[in-house]
């Protein structure tokens, strides 16, 4: 047994080089020497771990993304992106595949929750003014991730090939055609033709399972990397270095082992009492948050089934034909004017979001909730968010057949919803 044991020891040591750490130095070392942990700092500020600072929204978004990738890959084993098989695959998931309903429900709920979590995460960062220098680019990456999340939802929406899917995508891609100059060509490219058909289904499938998740993964990696390099969470008292020569800019917050072993360097000059080791404090919270996220997704998946309407009928839309809820504000806007509501207003919102960190160069009120100095920016942001929510509520509950105004308590039948 002894030789076998020593071989096992060798293999184990080659993978887990430092073993389970027993000292603080070892715990710090573990964070830097493992590929899977090295995005974490060796130490974090106590502040960072306080739930009320962030509500863990970014991490919840990441957890949901992980759940979506796993359930998505499992769904890929069941789903065939063809006009003949797509809807049948949904029925198979429902009636044939063991835990197929749970799988699809979980994927759908995680997708809905991810849209909410990402929007709330953005709201948190905005309301704290945390997009300001030096975090401008990470804010831009974050806005891109929001758009990718929405586009992932949109492409996933077509795949069941039921009535809702078909007409939501017909309407959605027609909005794209209103974009100036390239609108029609873009729609043709997106659909792979002039109407939603087999080429469209295949294109959306590839976008949904390969291109967009890969892009999202890359951007998430950049997002987390920059989070570290830009000094973690924004704080009111942080120093923003303004060295003109980029090469000379020292890393603002990065703990090498030297810093821990040799005591404080100028970069870690603040009170050590403010900081705790990431192992175990940060890791434990991350694991708990993941389990919590998964529990919520599973609970919703068990309690509420993802809807499946009848097979797509390319001739007649359902009446009313409603987009998924996160696009209902857009649909309400396009019901007034497709160009203004579908292109101009969303375009202005996205450009404004992207430009915010470059227009707002002030420092006051960074890193605190609802800072007095930021009342104007915060008010505008909340107003826009509330307007979008109001439009969503109107489109959900007050729109009946032919998109006419109905009162929710009247007895007009609405399909889907």
């Amino acid at each position: 047994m002894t030789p076998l044991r020593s071989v096992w020891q060798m293999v184990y040591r080659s993978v887990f080089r430092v073993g389970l750490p027993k000292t603080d130095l070892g715990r710090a070392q573990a964070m830097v020497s493992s590929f899977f942990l090295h995005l974490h700092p060796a130490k974090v500020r106590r502040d960072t771990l306080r739930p009320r600072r962030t509500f863990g929204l970014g991490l919840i978004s990441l957890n949901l993304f992980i759940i979506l990738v796993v359930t998505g890959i499992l769904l890929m084993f069941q789903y065939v992106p063809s006009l003949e098989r797509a809807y049948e695959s949904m029925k198979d998931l429902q009636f044939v595949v063991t835990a197929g309903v749970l799988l699809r429900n979980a994927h759908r709920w995680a997708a809905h929750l991810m849209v909410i979590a990402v929007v709330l995460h953005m709201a948190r960062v905005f309301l704290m003014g945390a997009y300001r220098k030096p975090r401008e680019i990470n804010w831009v990456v974050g806005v891109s991730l929001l758009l990718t999340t929405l586009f992932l939802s949109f492409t996933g929406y077509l795949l069941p090939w039921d009535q809702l899917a078909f007409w939501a995508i017909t309407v959605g891609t027609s909005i794209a055609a209103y974009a100036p100059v390239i609108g029609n060509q873009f729609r043709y490219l997106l659909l792979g033709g002039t109407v939603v058909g087999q080429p469209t289904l295949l294109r959306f499938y590839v976008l949904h399972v390969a291109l967009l998740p890969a892009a999202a993964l890359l951007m998430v990696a950049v997002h987390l990397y920059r989070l570290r390099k830009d000094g973690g969470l924004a704080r009111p008292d942080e120093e923003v270095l303004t060295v003109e020569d980029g090469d000379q800019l020292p890393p603002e917050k990065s703990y090498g082992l030297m810093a821990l072993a040799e005591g404080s360097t100028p970069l870690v000059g603040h009170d050590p009492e403010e900081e705790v080791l990431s192992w175990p404090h940060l890791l434990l919270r991350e694991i708990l948050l993941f389990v919590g996220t998964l529990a919520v997704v599973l609970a919703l998946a068990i309690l509420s089934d993802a809807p499946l309407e009848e097979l797509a009928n390319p001739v007649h839309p359902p009446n009313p034909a409603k987009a998924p809820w996160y696009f209902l504000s857009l649909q309400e806007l396009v019901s007034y004017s497709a160009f203004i509501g579908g292109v101009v207003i969303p375009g202005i919102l996205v450009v404004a979001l992207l430009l915010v960190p470059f227009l707002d160069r002030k420092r006051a009120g960074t890193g605190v909730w609802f800072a007095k100095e930021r009342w104007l920016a915060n008010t505008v942001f909340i107003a826009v968010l509330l307007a979008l929510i109001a439009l969503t509520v109107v489109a959900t509950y007050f729109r009946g057949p032919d998109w006419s105004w109905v009162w929710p308590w009247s007895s007009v039948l609405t399909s889907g919803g």
Partner: protein
Amino acid sequence: MSNERLPVIGAGAPSESGKGLRRRDFILLVSAWIGTLGSLLAVAAAGLRGLVPNLLDEPNIRYRVGKPEDYPVGSIAFLDEVRVFLFRRGDSFRAMSGVCTHLGCTVNRDDVAEGGFRCPCHGSVFDDGGRVLEGPAPRPLPSYAVTMARDGRLSVDRARVVSPDRYLVLEEPFDQTDGEPS
């Protein structure tokens, strides 16, 4: 090993005046970059061009429908595959798109009101000539040229948009069921 002799790509020797690149190095550098980026772009363009379909598996632009006698006088038929309404008035025919110009839903014949078409998606209303009466639709529903093909069937040419007043008038008795060789 000394790397003094290792040439650094793109870093030419300074010009005689002591600053900037020599002209020869500048030209080399610029053409090298153009060549590199240009060829990469060309490869990318060639790879992506295939995504723009050259052939569509969709109904013909000039869509062959039934014979005139298949459509009763005064009827409005709906051609499912191309989503076109075919009107018959007396011995005259016209065709009009049933695809809402707003966002592509199929409009429904409004039987409750007096004629006209209504879009279920965002509530646009059109009259029988396709003109927008209300709602967000930016353009009228286009009318298409109807022609008679050689085999005696009607054909809707969706590439030819015509005025809603244009009818295909069949002057000769077109009921050829008796005259056809069988």
